[in-house]
């Protein structure tokens, strides 16, 4: 099979790439909201994995897809709570810059 022909490996590698991009965002962005959405990118990378495995490994069982549904649900809930916290912290600190949030340390 030509490597160009798309197979499971392609999806898995794509997932890894997306995961890495999301991770880079998480590690390097100052804005809390940006970090939050980068986490969403990482979760989506996982979803690619899950759905790809669902198709290639257990096509008839839908486990992966179901898993992905739950992941999306949880992710949405997390974003909701996350934004609420960001709003709360903004209210306290007038900033969403994560570098400022180091009162708790050592």
């Amino acid at each position, binding site marked *: 099979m030509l490597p160009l022909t798309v197979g499971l490996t392609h999806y898995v590698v794509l997932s890894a790439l997306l995961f890495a991009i999301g*991770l880079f965002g*998480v*590690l*390097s962005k100052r804005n809390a909201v940006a*970090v939050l959405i980068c986490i969403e990118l990482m979760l989506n990378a996982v979803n690619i994995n899950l759905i790809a495995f669902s198709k290639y490994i257990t096509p008839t069982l839908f486990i992966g897809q179901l898993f992905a549904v739950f992941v999306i649900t949880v992710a949405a809930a997390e974003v909701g709570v996350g934004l609420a916290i960001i709003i709360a912290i903004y209210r306290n600190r007038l900033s969403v810059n*994560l*570098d400022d*949030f*180091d*009162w*708790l*340390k*050592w």
Partner: protein
Amino acid sequence: MVEFALYNAWLVPLLPALAFLAIIFLTRPWPMLSALVAVGGIVASFVVSALVAYGVFTNPEFLEKPLVYAVRWFSMPGLNVDVGIQVDPVSAMMIFMVTMVASLIFIYAIGYMKGDPGFSVFFSYVSLFAASMLLLALSSNLVEMFVAWELVGLCSYLLIGFYSYKISAREAAKKAFITCRVADFGLLLGLLALQIVFGTLNLVELSDKVAHYEKYTTFGVLTLIAVLVFIGPIGKSGQFPLHVWLPDAMEGPTPVSALIHAATMVVAGVYLVARTVFIFAKVPAAMELVAVVGAFTALFAATIAVTQREIKRILAYSTVSQIGYMMLGLGVGSMTAGLFHMWTHAFFKALMFLAAGSVLHALHHKADIWEMGGLIRKMPVTGWTFVVGGLAIAGIPPFAGFWSKDEILVAALESGHYVLFVMAAFTAFLTAFYMWRLIFLTFFGEENPANHPHESPPVMTVPLVILAFLSAVGGLVGTPWAPVWSQWIFFEHPHHVEPNYWVMIGSVVLAAAGIYLAYQLYVVDKAKVKVKELAERYRHIYTILYNKYYIDEIYLWFNHTIIDGAAKLIYLFDIYIIDGVIVNGLAYLTGLSGESLRVLNTGRLQNYALVFFLGVLALVVLLAFTGPSSASLTLGGVK
């Protein structure tokens, strides 16, 4: 009665011990009562001792087989230690002598210590002292003897330091104890070796086993044991080089000096050697050692005594010298002679100490003989009794010292120790000289107008008189013509000495010469010009002698520089290296690593995420590159 005493000889040490307890716990607030208890205790003990002595010396069976009764003190497999009483002529003689002298001293002390705030305590201490000494004399077991030996040391410590508020007394007491400790270290090693080699420390069993020591050990080991055992007496009996404590021990009250120096503690060493003579007898080298140490000490101490100025100090060096004589007697193979000298010495030395005490009492503790003079006019009893003592120690017949000294000299000569004989003879001359120097300076010549002496009360003088009597006649039990002493006190077989007239005459001549010389220098020459001239001419020798060969200084230097220096060094090592560097260092490192790791928690959550993924990477790498095999090799892990 006699039978009862023989079989209950344990009463002898017990009675003074009870007196001690009674005084400490009951009668301490009432001084006179305490004194009565103490005197009562020791006199009762004397009565029992006398009965025991009577029983022993009327029954020759005791020569063959000592009477021993013992109880178990403690035991375990391989180690049985009894405490018991061994009654035989030697111990009977000893307890008789000790109780007799001690009784007199106790009575004397009533007068001497009058008004002292520690009166009761003093009597309790001396009672304990007497008890310990008597236990030592009667011990049937070397451990028991060692116990008594140390208790005697303790009492001497307490009594020397009796005036504990005086720094000199405090230091002297400490010095006495520690010097003896050094010696006891040797003795203890010897006892341990005996126990290990022969499996017993009971005197009777031990003497049987040592007789056939080849079955148990080698000659070399036995020699070593004998030498070790002898180290104890060197210390306790003030032999060179551990004699240093003895002169300092004069810090105690004078009756104590008498008790320590005359009858009891110092002769304990002689007694111990006599008790273990069966070991020494097997080891000629050890015997030689005893003899040489004795002779050397005798001469050595006598030379020091010549230059001393304090009355009790001269007596102290004289004691050292006289005990050297006893050791010489034992060392040349005559237990009879050694113990005989111990016996006579007890009387005349106790006499002299008590008399000296009487003098000091009268002069309010002014001790320098050069500041005395002519005391005999004001204190006739004290003076004349002292003269009797002087004659006895100088060896003028028929006083006690003559007979015993003569016997030692003869024994040395007969056994072929010519050098030692000469040394002993010269010592006899010196003894006569320095003792009469003391007598002349103190009691004769011109009175010192600064002094206002008065005779002591009868409670003090009566014991002096009794002791003077004993010093005069005490030697008659062992004259060459009627050798009662040597029939009873001997090792293996009676040591019968043929009267050696040359030695007798020689020693009398030497003694007379010494007295004459002293007379010339200190009485005839009123201004003491010659003495000063001599001292000036032989300045160096005089200084060395006056400073007691600087031995004290050497010890002091050793103690303060070497021992304390090492102590300081070790202490510094302990707090700076062991504790500082290692213990606190480790603790500091722990804290430091905590501090430094703590800084990693910067408070920035993205740092945390970064560390998180570094962790993930580390896990992956560990997993990928450490399979089960390699991991288990490196960290000892997976089965």
